């Protein structure tokens, strides 16, 4: 699918863990700004691997190789410094990862601390409040801001992690199965939240939950064995998939 003004573009992206096996094979796709794009597929299809290529997480592991181009606003992030890229590309992980020694307050500001950015007291207070409000957590935690982040429930912790990522005002928010460790009610909260957030940030979400992809995403990718099989409007893909494999997956015959 060709988009007029994509914020992110994959061009023949390959990721390999060893020389023989490619986890992601020649994926090309364009991601629309201020939308939610879901990446679906069975376990081991390379969806998380593709996602983690976007904020250069693979750079941590010297044996993983990423080839091709990933353009963020036209610039290839594979040639950029990881710390620059990661400031523009936020990430939320499968399990909530609040920093255990930091308070809720400090967790929201962790991005600034880790980047060595000093904020005035007013700026800190404003950032914490607005970020926690944007993830609908402010009213629940405003009286316990000094408690440790791990004091919160799983769903609250995940929203705290989203707030922490949003604090740096990223262009793109990557989410790697952000609700798979949460109960249905917490999941519903996060999904509602993502629909609100897409006005401010582009969201790329990996999910193994087809219902979730259908509920929140405007476009969906279906990956299988490292290849991007189909990429289309979510509605179109769920009602009339063009590839047999997509159809088999969506109807539960595969995966």
């Amino acid at each position, binding site marked *: 699918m060709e988009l007029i003004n994509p914020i992110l573009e994959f061009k023949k992206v390959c990721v390999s863990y060893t020389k023989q096996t490619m986890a992601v094979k020649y994926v090309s796709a364009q991601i629309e700004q201020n939308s939610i794009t879901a990446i679906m597929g069975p376990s081991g299809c390379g969806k998380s691997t593709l996602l983690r290529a976007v904020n250069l997480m693979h750079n941590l592991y010297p044996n993983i190789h990423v080839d091709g181009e990933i353009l963020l606003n036209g610039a290839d992030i594979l040639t950029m410094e990881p710390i620059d890229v990661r400031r523009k590309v936020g990430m939320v992980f499968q399990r909530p990862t609040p*920093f255990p020694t930091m308070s809720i307050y400090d967790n929201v500001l*962790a991005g600034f601390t*880790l980047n060595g950015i000093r904020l005035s007291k007013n700026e800190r207070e404003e950032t914490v409040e607005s970020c926690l409000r944007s993830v609908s957590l402010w009213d629940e935690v405003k009286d316990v801001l000094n408690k440790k982040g791990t004091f919160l429930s799983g769903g609250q912790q995940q929203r705290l992690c989203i707030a922490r990522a949003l604090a740096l005002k990223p262009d793109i928010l990557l989410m790697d199965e952000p609700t798979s460790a949460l109960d249905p009610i917490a999941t519903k909260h996060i999904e509602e939240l993502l629909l609100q957030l897409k006005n401010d940030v582009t969201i790329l979400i990996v999910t193994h939950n087809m219902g979730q992809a259908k509920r929140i995403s405007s476009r969906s990718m279906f990956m299988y064995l490292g290849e991007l099989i189909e990429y289309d409007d979510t509605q179109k893909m769920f009602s009339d998939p063009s590839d047999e494999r997509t159809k088999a997956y969506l109807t539960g015959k595969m995966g």
Partner: protein
Amino acid sequence: MQKKKLSQRLFIDRLVKGVVCVLAALTAVPLIAIIGEVLWKGYDQLSWSFFTEPTPTAYKAMMATAAGEPIPGGIANGIVGTVIMLGMAVVIAVPIGILCGVYLAEHSKSRFAKTVSYLTDLLQGTPSVIIGIITYIWVVVPMKGYSAIAGSVALFIMMLPLIVRSTEETMKILPASLKEAGLALGGNNARVILKVQLPAAFGGIFTGVLLAVSRVIGETAPLMFTALGCSMIRFSIDKPISAVPLLIWEFFNDPNLQSLIWGASLFLLLFVLFLNLTAKKIANKWNS
């Protein structure tokens, strides 16, 4: 037939369990016996002046014993020396040990790190008397005299591998997601280690430092070659200085002072016990 077999099997099971329990209990016996004996013999000597006054001369001790009085004086010179030497050793060993441990955990696959890690193990197993004599050659001879500095160098060498190891192990068991989450926010490696990983590992590292201190506080052999001992309370670091384990050895060698052995031993034992219990408490709190 079937039933008999079952009862036999159950019997063997109980027998093995019984033997294991008895053996487990036996391992606790030495410690309990040691604490009992030292408490029994040393309890009498503990008094305020035992901790505030230096070791008496043999003559004073002899006169007091002849007059049927308790021996005057105490082990204050040893306590001061131990605190000074341990303090200096800790101040140097903690930053170096932690940095080294962090490096080994971060680069666990590099050949250099593997070599360093292996050498650390060897250093940990080096007999303390050898560390003592080497420190004598390296520090006491060039400085032309025994000193607290030399003593603390010996203790530093003994503590270093323990701190390196505990830091390395603690850093390695931190979940990888913690580091990834920190890096995903755009932090550089150093900041993520400093602001996220080290604070999360603090409990384990602190426990390691306490155990390292409790491990070397009773070391006698290396101090014989380096600190030598001194009967006065002394605060200067370039002169010979006393230490509690050195005093125990001196008391043992002086018939007039022998009864002070138990008070000094009790102090040392209680201190080590206190450090170990504190370390355990911190470890538990950190793990929960």
